[in-house]
């Protein structure tokens, strides 16, 4: 009996399907490296992560079903490789407790501080969002569970179901983490701009 794994659903991309590992994997190297660098915060570790992911995918490619969702499959390998890496283990030790405490009921209204949005003028918000460097600094403050979900959702444009499969978490948890990540990003941006506003006032 063949078990149909969740990531093996039909890929959304149109066009002819290819089964060659080279054609499927190489276009994803920039994305894999970008996410690996964000998670490891280190160029050398990012290279190691991508290389190890690539080799694992290469060796396990026989088990991959042609035409299914290769991107979710290889990102899942990257994520699992990261979790067992030195930086991944250190990050998990740091944030695991906090993450578990905040996970339950995260989709409720209490997770969404309205003040984070209403406190500032639309002009200020637009100015902050146009400041790419400020947003990158804000992203750096996110704990790995929130950072990875926002990278997969906003940067890699994955659907919630794909993210859930990649991260091996329920869709509800994906939604709550995305909500928390965006609240945290706004809070971090606000912190960066707060001294400037006080100074100008």
């Amino acid at each position, binding site marked *: 009996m063949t078990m149909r794994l969740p990531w093996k659903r039909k890929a959304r991309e149109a066009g002819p399907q290819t089964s060659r590992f080279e054609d499927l994997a190489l276009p994803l190297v920039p994305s894999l490296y970008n996410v690996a660098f964000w998670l490891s915060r280190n160029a050398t570790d990012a290279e190691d992560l991508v290389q190890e992911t690539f080799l694992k995918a290469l060796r396990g490619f026989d088990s991959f079903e042609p035409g299914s969702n290769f991107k979710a499959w290889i990102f899942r390998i990257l994520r699992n490789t990261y979790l067992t890496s030195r930086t991944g283990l250190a990050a998990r030790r740091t944030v695991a407790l906090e993450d578990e405490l905040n996970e339950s009921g995260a989709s409720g209204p209490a997770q969404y501080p309205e003040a984070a949005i209403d406190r500032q003028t639309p002009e200020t918000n637009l100015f902050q969002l146009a400041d790419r460097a400020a*947003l990158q600094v804000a992203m750096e403050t996110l704990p790995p569970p929130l950072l990875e979900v926002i990278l997969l959702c906003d940067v890699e444009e994955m659907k919630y179901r794909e993210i859930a499969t990649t991260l091996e978490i329920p869709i509800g948890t994906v939604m709550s983490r995305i909500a928390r990540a965006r609240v945290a990003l706004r809070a971090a941006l606000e912190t960066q701009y707060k001294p400037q506003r006080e100074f100008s006032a």
Partner: protein
Amino acid sequence: MTDHLSPAIVNALVDGELTADQLAGANLHLAECPRCTSVALHQSLLKSATAKAGQRYAPPPQLQERLARLASQEDSGFQTPWFRPVPVTAVRSVGRFGLMGWAAAVVLLLASVSMMFVQRAETASAEHAALVTEVFDQHVATLAANIAPQVVSTDRHTVKPWFQGKIPFSFNLPQNLPNDTTLDGADLTYLRDQPVAQLLYSIGKHRVSIFLRQKSGAEVANELVTERSGFHVMGFRTNDLEVVAVSDVDPARLAELVSAIKHAQTGDQQQPK
């Protein structure tokens, strides 16, 4: 006016995750609620700004080239057994092997030096020198290549069984290793047309290759110690095995590991120092 849109609905809206019914309901509400419209607009702007800011790091060209070479080899079904990627951290820790081009040049240079050495070493037998050269080249190729060992494990109970059926002899791995020494994995390789177990260890950041093969002659002198271009080659013989170790680590530390392996063959395990 109905209740405001929940955060989950607003996020799902900007992420394109609402069903048709949910989307219709949300649009109805947004048409008459400036506050929720503002929230949704800001979430949408944040999403697009994050998408741009998140595209921050580009892979180095040499990584892409390396992976492309690996993938093309796999797709063509061609795999060279000696071409194994080493983690970047390991490659960089060796320093002089930062680039593949440099590595190839170093291999050629060392091979030339090795040949000169063999010619001048009048006291060493030709077979002995050839074996040392081959071991030395194999170790350098391992450092310069970029493929993980064929068996990647720090567990001796994983590494040893992996060789079952691959080599016509058996060996033991030490339970206790010297301080700061770890087993990285192993490869099946060939020396002088014979299958050889190449055990890969790290002593600190220095990598060590231990070659074990079935005893076939008097090619490895008992307690062999040779220095070549900063690398040390040392070995020993048992009744059944010839063992050669090569590394650029301090020879005293290499000797500790060699001693541990030697004692493992005789069943006399050493305590870690």
